[in-house]
């Protein structure tokens, strides 16, 4: 039987630490840069609709058991 998924640490990232090479690459590839823009716009929209306190939102979502 296979094991549970192992933890895979993620490198902290974001728009701020995009390397100059990556930025240049994005410029050279209009499709990739459009995709990056769309993703940024999606993530921004998500931030506007999600309650900022994730911990409270999640922990307060408690139902009684159903079927």
């Amino acid at each position: 039987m296979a094991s549970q998924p192992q933890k895979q640490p993620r490198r902290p990232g974001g728009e701020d630490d995009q390397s100059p090479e990556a930025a240049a690459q994005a410029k050279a590839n209009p499709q990739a840069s459009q995709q990056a823009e769309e993703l940024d716009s999606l993530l921004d929209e998500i931030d506007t609709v999600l309650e900022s306190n994730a911990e409270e939102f999640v922990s307060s979502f408690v139902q009684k058991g159903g079927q």
Partner: protein
Amino acid sequence: MDRRIFGVETEFGISHRPVEGRGLPPDELARYLFRPVVEFGRSSNIFIPNGSRLYLDVGSHPEYASAECADLIDLIANENAGDRIMHDLAVAAEKAIHLDGFSGQIYVLKNNVDSAGNSYGSHENYLIPRTTHFRRLSGILLPFLVTRQIISGAGRVVPATDETEAHFAFSQRADHMWEGISSATTRARPIINTRDEPHSDAATHRRLHVIVGDSNMSTTTALLRYGSTDLVLRMIEAGVPIGDYELENPISAIRHISHDITGHAAVRVRGAEDHTAVQIQRGLLQRAQRFVAEHGAHHEHVETVLELWERALESVETGDHTLIDHDIDWAIKKRLVEEVADARGLEMGHRRLEQVDMAYHDVNPDRGLFHMLRRRGRATDVLDAGAVTEAMITPPATRAALRGQVVSTARAYGAQSTVDWVHHKLTDRPLDAVMLKDPFAVVDSRIDALLDKLGDRSSQLRERTLDERRGSGASLALTDRYALLGEPERDEPPLI
């Protein structure tokens, strides 16, 4: 069966998030939500003009039971009408709590787990012939249902426990199934429920009740989920030989499969080598492909179902989830969770990702993350524009149309009616009750005769337009279909 009746019952999770402090408890919130339902139907358990049923279930879950449908697209439209109704009720409830001095927003989530480990379901109903051998049915259907999560699971961000790291799983419901087959639901929570309430002629049919499924946001995923299950049932009913994948321990298998997103988890098959979920699903898919090639497609969506099924299995097998990340809920959600994690530098255990998971299931079309992805072309949809609005007011072409007719006609004449899935009566004429055992029936002379007693419908009733109905109730689904001619349109009471 070439034609089959389908239905799905959805339990919703609810939450009130005030600007500060604690929200209203679920039972109080549910009462606010159902206020327009009670105003419309004088009860918190009613059949509505589109033929479906709205009610508050065990534990104050708002629940929507779709009308019986004979077509998969009708079923999905009717199911989604329920989501829209819940959203409408949330909007009305939010106004009501604000008038009562509470602040904040109300959330209705079409998901299956809360943060305390409670689970609530999405229960499918399939009409099957009574002659179906139950041992054969369960032997084939259980392994199919246990592994179906890899093609139709809703996906879940699973928080860390003492034993396991936080991770992404195929299914919401898998961890909450306790038995393979049983007659109880709340207590034993079996994958297949055997309580025998056929809601039709018990001599010829039974109603298969499946409670293992995740609630789907994607209509494409829903089509694959119901369509593949129908195909497997069809093969069981036809008596064709189907590979034997009987599982040694279905409950351990369903959990094991859910938590290994690589699809490599192997499970014990009785009298055979261990199988992965992909191997079991592929065996069943190949059998279904051969069956369709030999017997022909029994409805117009079969080809789409087979194509999606094949592609989903290839995606899990190869690990290339981009193949289905616009079509299958778990993959759509997984991509989103990974994008948020990458862009914001969050690890899998971060609460924000659990919040993204929950918000994916928000029925609010402006705020819900699945709806946001669909608007942005990141999720496919098998329904035409307008199909959900139509399904909110129009019953599908089954017995539900007759039920809707009784409800709407009685309301127009100001008469009380009592209906359930099978029975129809006007409260003033208890001896004229009509029992409709055939769920496929769309006309019935006894129903006509019953409604004729209220008046001359063709000259006295006028069908109200969509524009007239819009805005005349908390939800379009809770408005009257007919106006009685000769009486001015009466103003609906204000929504409070």
